[in-house]
């Protein structure tokens, strides 16, 4: 079964920024979305290095200073924003788990979660 969850308004995420979300109310962010202009990329907030720890050093700190890469703060792994592929660091060659995300006509971002 999959379910659709409304995350936020499209413009709630500033351009070239990332934001974490807690759609299943765990009390901590479990997914994050990166915005690049009109494009949105969503991933599970889990670093492939150990497979069960989250990426940012502070809420919403998922990108490097230039906004060019997703970063795991624990050991500095870098991930391509569009593909989720780790290009440098401990999990080089592995990928973040993508989450389907859509901008709907209602102006909101929706994700699809599998359970």
């Amino acid at each position, binding site marked *: 079964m999959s379910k659709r969850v409304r995350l936020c308004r499209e413009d709630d995420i500033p351009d070239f920024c990332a934001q974490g979300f807690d759609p299943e109310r765990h009390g901590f962010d479990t997914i994050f979305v990166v915005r690049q202009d009109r494009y949105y990329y969503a991933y599970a907030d889990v670093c492939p290095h150990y497979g069960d720890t989250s990426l940012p*050093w502070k*809420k919403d*700190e998922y990108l490097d200073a230039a906004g060019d890469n997703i*970063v795991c*703060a*624990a*050991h*500095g792994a870098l991930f391509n924003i569009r593909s989720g592929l780790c290009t440098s*660091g401990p999990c080089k060659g592995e990928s973040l788990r993508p989450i389907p995300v859509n901008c709907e006509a209602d102006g909101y971002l929706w994700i699809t979660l599998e359970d």
Partner: protein
Amino acid sequence: MNIIGPDLLVFGVDDVDACRQFASDYGLTASGDHRFVALDGTGIEIRSKDDDALPAALETGSMLRKTLYGVADQATVDAIAAELEKDRDVTRFDDGSIESKDDHGFVLGFQVTVRQVLDMPAETINAPGAPAQRGVNQIAVSKEDSPKPRTLSHVVYFVPDAPKQEAFYRDRLGFVTTDRFTHVGPFMRPAGTQDHHTVFFIQTPPHMKGIEHFTFHMGGPTDVVTAGTNMVNKGYQSFWGPGRHIFGSNWFWYFKSPFGCNMEFDADMDLHDEQWAAREAMPGADNSQVFLLQYREKWAPMGPPPPKAGA
């Protein structure tokens, strides 16, 4: 080789402002243009990754650019220079310090140590059967405590050949192995300290080479947990801890950081001398800690306030 321990870690970072803020919130004090120091003067140097003053980065892009060791005296610096010059380049600087590389290309420096001798009490406890460490009417804690790191403690490195690394630090620099995890690598201390370890090397594939974490000694377990709680309250995210390790017995709490590695608080590490026989254990969760706790927001066993009279 009377090497005491790390005096300074030099970083070339992606986001200087974030790292400066993090270092300050961690409890280090700004010193000069680039440094943040603990109470005894040991610390870290934060520069932008393209700063020309930095040694070249490792091919993996690890943000740690140099580990600068403090040693007892200039004669020790000179002896290390003479030893390393047998098979590698050694640069001598005007301030008397030297720079070279270990067998994995990590840049090492050696200088007469800058660490000041601290004269301050350890965290105190009162226990039945033992003399009270805190006298009558002396209280231990307050909500406002913000303990400061005392001294740079240890650095953990991912290395592609841990046995080679252990041999270099043992044979060329006089480090001693205090304990080891099988197939992972050794905990080592230099001859000038009794601390269980100032380095731990973790065997990994070559593309991981770099720093795994670094940490400063705090005044005791309460300081570790208080400092960590203050970090959580400022929005920083825990990676592992609080807990207590088995090898070294040190309390730990690791935080993810903008330095591209974890930054730890630690306290109350075992001391060893040449009488100690290194132990060996299989790696894994069970042998990594005696216990592991997890932060939770402040809570108390209380319901909501009682309804007002007449309401």
